[in-house]
């Protein structure tokens, strides 16, 4: 059973995922279905440079700074949402 704190974090991550999907949909040509496990490279065919451009939009939106090291293990919307959630919580 998850604790209250874990559920709060999960809800926050889900909300961030929805925002990320919105930002990403705005810059994609096709109307690919986006989900938590959508992979930027294998599902969306983005070049690394396009991923980094997207990340900068995310930084502006949430007014945060994401360092490149935290991005090294990020491949999906869900993984990026977790990084964003961590930074928002400070």
């Amino acid at each position: 059973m998850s604790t209250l704190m874990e559920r709060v974090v999960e809800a926050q991550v889900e909300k961030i995922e929805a925002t990320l999907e919105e930002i990403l949909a705005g810059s994609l040509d096709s109307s690919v279905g986006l989900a938590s496990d959508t992979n930027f490279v294998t599902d969306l065919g983005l070049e690394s440079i396009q991923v980094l451009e997207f990340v900068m939009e995310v930084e502006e939106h949430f007014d945060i700074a994401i360092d490149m090291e935290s991005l090294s293990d990020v491949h999906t919307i869900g993984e990026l949402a977790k990084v964003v959630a961590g930074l928002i919580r400070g």
Partner: protein
Amino acid sequence: MKDKVDLLDKFEKIASNRDQLTAVGRDPTSIVIERIISPTEAIIDGKQTILVGTNNYLGLTFDPECVAAGQAALAEAGTGTTGSRMANGSYQPHLALERELADFYGVAHAMVFSTGYAANLGTLAALANNGDVVVLDADAHASLYDGCRMSGASVYRFRHNDMGSLEKRLQRLADKAGRTLIVVEGLYSVLGDRAPLREIAALKSEFGAHLLVDEAHSLGVYGAHGRGVCEELGVMDEVDFVVGTFSKSLGATGGFCASRHDVLPLFRYASRPYIFTASGNPSVIATTRAALRQLAKRPDLRQKLRHNAERLYRGLEGMGLRLGADVSPVIAVRFEHSADAARTWERLLEAGIYTNLFVPPATPDGSSLLRCSVSAAHSDEQIDTILERFSEIIEPMRSQAVRG
């Protein structure tokens, strides 16, 4: 369960990418200079070719004084140093070059590295460590990215030349401002645009951060004394570290870092790319010193370079081609489709004009382009020939595109 992936499997993907590149035409990575004739001419595919993609900004590679200095050093000091400066000792000319570079920049210290790549790696690795912050222009050269990675610092990118983007990151990281290093280039090597260094220096001072400027493509090109964009824009005193290379305007190999800070000599103990590599060959150090003297005493080379850059830029602009925003010795001719860029590049080569082809992901904004780098050694006639060939190749492609 045993992993089925083999160490060598990754090369299948690389081979497939290379095959895609070569399937549509000539492989741009396989150019052979069969014979180099001068700073601006070579034999390629058995044909005399005008070189307009060499970074040889001042055209000093065949300068008689530089060649003589290299020959003398080769005869006097041999072919190589066979070791590193830390373990095997510096030759006197390494130290002399460091003194001359420091004097050239009007700062207390300079340090010489064996390549420009090593200079960026070695400077960043020594300067920034775990817990420090680097704020890097997104279009920065790979060597700066690699140096950041090696440093262990937290690295944040800001949008290319976007002061709002830089300021926001400095604000968000304000509690670490004192241990923050801003990293930019003077002249960006793909699109040929310059950094707004006055604004960057003002932000650096406002937040109390430090500033490193890579003048690889701007040394000898900008400023009253040829020190670079920092000098041109009057911000030398606000720049903490200048890095650069000997391999472009100075026509040799090697790199350097120059700084007013007294900590720079201590980098020698903290910079692995400095410590664990052989020092520059005596002949290379000698030609670099001679080229630096030429750069300092011949402002006419910079004037000629500007004249040539202006002539080529205006000519290309007149054909309605889409170029980078600034007139500089790096002129990017931009294309919407990578196939058009590749076809133009190949036809130019067949017509005896050598440019550099850039396609994604090597370009900063995902576009495709031909990079022309102008030299002071180009004659007006050569520039005009380059323009004529461009016109002959571009026009039929354009009318074909219109006809659809």
